[in-house]
């Protein structure tokens, strides 16, 4: 009897967890709205506490990313709107966010939006030190050059295509 009750409760919690995840995952990134917080890997996990309170865990991209607070507020608002007014959002620093967590779908959305997606294996010094070539998101050419490793937001670098001559943003490795 007791175990049957526990099973029912955990099933409830699994349903809550899934609904909260779906609501939170759909929140767009405030700076690059074509990708969601789930695409970026910023939304780490949804937990349900014993009393049924859902807690969404988010992680910042860069320590000083100004969008972090806004993301937390928007994730919380989305969860509350989905019918969980008591929900909380918590920030976790560890493990540190990496561009390797970007989903394949997120990478494709970035490219279509005109931002070159990050190289994979970003924890390797080789990728970090810009030794790999970045393909132009407009024409696909590999003939590109770095203008600056710092761009309009902490996560982007400035590049220029030598084939089509267009400047573009590169979502740099971290």
């Amino acid at each position, binding site marked *: 009897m007791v175990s049957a009750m526990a099973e029912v409760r955990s099933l409830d919690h699994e349903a809550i967890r899934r609904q909260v995840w779906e609501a939170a995952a759909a929140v767009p990134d405030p700076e690059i709205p074509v990708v969601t917080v789930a695409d970026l890997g910023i939304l780490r996990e949804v937990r349900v506490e014993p009393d049924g309170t859902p807690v969404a865990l988010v992680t*910042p991209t*860069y*320590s*000083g*990313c*100004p969008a972090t607070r806004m993301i937390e507020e928007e994730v919380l608002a989305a969860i509350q709107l989905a019918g969980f007014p008591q929900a909380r959002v918590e920030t976790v*620093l*560890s*493990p*540190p*966010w*990496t561009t390797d967590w970007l989903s394949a779908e997120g990478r494709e959305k970035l490219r279509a939006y005109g931002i070159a997606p990050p190289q994979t294996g970003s924890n390797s010094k080789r990728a*970090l*030190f810009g030794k790999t070539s970045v393909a132009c998101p407009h024409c696909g050419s590999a003939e590109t050059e770095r*203008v*600056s*490793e*710092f*761009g*309009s937001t*902490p996560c982007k670098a*400035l590049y220029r295509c030598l084939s089509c001559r267009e400047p573009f943003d590169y979502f*740099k490795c*971290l």
Partner: protein
Amino acid sequence: MVDNNLLFQYLLRLGDDQQILSQRLSEWCGHAPTLEEDLALANIALDLLGQARSLYTYAGEVEGAGRDEDQLAFLRYENEYTNALIVERPNGDFAHTITRQLFYSVYMDLHWNALLSSKDETVRAIAAKAVKEVDYHVRHAAEWVIRLGQGTEESHQRMVEALEEFAIYTGELFEMDDLAQQMFKAGVGVDLTLLRPEWEQQIAAVLGEAGLRMPEVNWMQTGGRSGEHTEHLGHLLCELQYMQRAYPGMTW
């Protein structure tokens, strides 16, 4: 068991270094030599600010007196800041700023890397994020030092002068005073003297490529770690603290 008051002081010290340098770099906003550099220095300042925020927030929790990151960042007096003197020095010209960036970023890269094995879980987590950000800062500074050193006669000469000015402030970064010793013994902090040979090697390598060299220094300026600052910090704090002093408790 780590003494909470010591840990608090230690976190403030680490936070102060990042915050004060962040404030200095922000002064370049709108004044940098090129648009790309304006963005770069502002982005680096932002990384440092984020690291300071994490450290101050944790310091406030450790202190347990209800002070949050803003109160620690904005509502202390000059002698309560224990940042190293190098970060409060005025920016000078671009060569000065870049020279400090090289000295400081290489130092923090080694420091954060060493803190990855701190026994304190939160310090470890902050270090793990910061170390990846500082990699970019090191490369940014090193590329500029090489470009300026090998550039024109004037850019080379300005680098020589900047190295002269900042060299005497580098010794303080590796000082092991009582607090640093205690935090090292507790397994939270690191033995900074062990970082120095590697720091010297990396700096020498970049300067070598730039056609420059580290000036001979037989005396090092010190004082920041015990709250004895240059006349420049007070002016910096006036600007930094203005809003919180004028509108106490103000939030965005």
